[in-house]
C-alpha cells in the first residue's frame, strides 16, 4: 500500500504504524513514551500528525498507534502540529522543570521556559510509564502508578514493597528523564531502596546481572542460570571465537 507523508509516496505494509513508515524513510517525528521493544502507548502525544482520508477533514492522530492505510495523506510538521508539540512540551516543562531531556526538546520547539504554573516540589518524572511497561515486559511487574490523573506517582506496591524487584535496571534505563535512581558501585547495585549483589563475568570479572535477575531470566527462558554469567563483551568475543573456529577449520 502507499501512504503519502509530507508529499512523498511511501510503501507501507498493513502491520505498520505511520511512525514506523516515517522512520523507515528518514522522516523524524519526536517521541517520549515510545520504545522499540514495547507496545506503543500513545501517552506523550508528541508523535501526533495530521492525517487525511480521501476528502475528509484533517485529523490529529498519534503516529505511533495509527495503522498505515492505503491512500492516507499525512503531514508531520504543520503549524497545527508544531503548536501542539510546543504546548505539550511547555506543559511538561511545568511538570518536570529539571528534566534535561524535556528542556532540550522544549528548546528545539521554541520553548525556553514554561509559561504555565510549575508543579510544587517537582521531580523529573513525566509519567510516561516506560518504567512500568518495561518492568512488566522484561521484569516482574514490580512497579506501577499509584493513584490516577495528575496525582499519579510511580511507586512500588504500598510504596515500600520491593520484594518483586530483581534489580535488572530496565526501569532506570528506559526512563527518558533520569527520574529513577540506580547506583552501581563495584558489584553493589542500589535501586528502589534495595541493595543487590551483581554477579561477575567468569571471563573478565566485570559486574554483570544481579543474582535475582539471572534467576528470573533462567526461569523465564528455561536456560540454566550460568548462561547469563558472561558479560556482553565477553559473550560476543566468545561467540566470534566459536564462529571463527567453525569456519576456520
Amino acid at each position: 500500500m502507499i501512504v503519502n507523508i509530507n508529499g512523498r509516496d511511501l510503501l507501507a505494509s498493513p502491520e505498520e504504524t505511520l511512525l514506523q513508515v516515517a522512520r523507515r524513510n528518514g522522516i523524524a517525528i519526536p517521541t517520549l513514551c515510545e520504545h522499540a521493544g514495547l507496545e506503543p502507548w500513545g501517552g506523550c502525544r508528541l508523535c501526533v500528525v495530521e492525517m487525511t482520508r480521501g476528502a475528509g477533514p484533517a485529523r490529529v492522530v498519534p503516529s505511533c498507534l495509527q495503522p498505515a492505510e492505503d491512500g492516507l495523506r499525512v503531514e508531520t510538521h504543520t503549524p497545527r502540529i508544531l503548536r501542539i508539540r510546543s504546548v505539550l512540551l511547555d506543559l511538561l516543562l511545568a511538570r518536570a522543570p529539571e528534566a534535561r531531556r524535556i528542556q532540550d526538546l522544549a528548546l528545539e520547539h521554541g520553548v525556553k521556559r514554561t509559561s504555565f504554573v510549575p508543579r510544587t516540589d517537582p521531580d523529573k518524572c513525566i509519567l510516561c510509564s516506560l518504567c512500568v511497561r518495561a518492568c512488566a515486559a522484561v521484569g516482574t511487574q514490580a512497579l506501577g502508578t499509584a493513584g490516577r490523573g495528575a496525582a499519579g506517582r510511580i511507586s512500588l506496591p504500598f510504596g515500600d514493597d520491593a520484594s518483586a524487584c530483581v534489580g535488572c535496571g530496565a526501569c532506570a534505563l528506559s526512563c527518558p528523564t533520569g527520574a529513577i535512581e540506580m547506583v552501581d558501585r563495584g558489584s553493589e547495585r542500589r535501586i528502589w531502596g534495595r541493595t543487590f549483589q551483581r554477579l561477575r563475568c567468569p571471563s573478565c570479572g566485570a559486574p554483570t546481572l544481579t543474582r535475582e535477575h539471572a534467576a528470573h531470566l533462567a526461569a523465564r527462558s528455561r536456560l540454566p542460570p550460568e548462561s547469563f554469567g558472561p558479560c556482553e563483551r565477553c559473550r560476543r568475543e566468545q561467540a566470534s571465537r566459536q564462529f571463527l573456529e567453525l569456519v576456520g577449520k
Partner: protein
Amino acid sequence: MNATAEPTCDLTKLDPILARYPAERRSLVMVLQDAQKVYQYLPRPALERIAEALKVPRSHVYHLATFYKAFSLEPRGRHICTICLGTACHVRGARRLVEHVERRAGIQAGRTTPDLQLTLETVNCVGACALGPVVIVDGEYIGSATTTKLDKVLKRILPGAAEEQQA
C-alpha cells in the same frame, strides 16, 4: 500514614469471597468490592492475599486499588458522610456544606477523624439530582440538605460537636 494502629487482619474472611469468583484477573474489582464491604476498607494483608489467590502481581492489585475512588486503603470511620458535588448539587451550594462539615469535624474531605468516628467523602453525583444538594450519611439520603440539617445529624456522631454549635 495512620496515627492509629491497624488492627490485625482476619484473612479467613476472604475465603468465602475468593470462593465466589473464578481465580483470575477479571474477578479483581468484584473481589475488592466484596472485601471492602467486609473489612470496611482494604487492609494491606488482604490485598497481598488477593494478589496471590488471583495469580496477579501485588503491584497490579495495589495500583488498581489506588486508581478507583471507591476503594480505601486506610481504615474508615464508623460513620460515613458522603456529600454529592455533582453539577446540580454544586449550583445549589454543595461546596458550602462540605466546608461546613470539614469545619465541624476538623478534617478535610477524603479523610477520617483520628478517633475513627467519621469519614467525610465527596462524590461526583449520586444520581438524585432533583433533591440537590444531597448528603448521604450511613446510607441514608438527606435531600435539600442544609447546614442546619447536617448539624442535627453530626450532633449524634461527633463528640463535642454539640457544644461547638452553642458557642
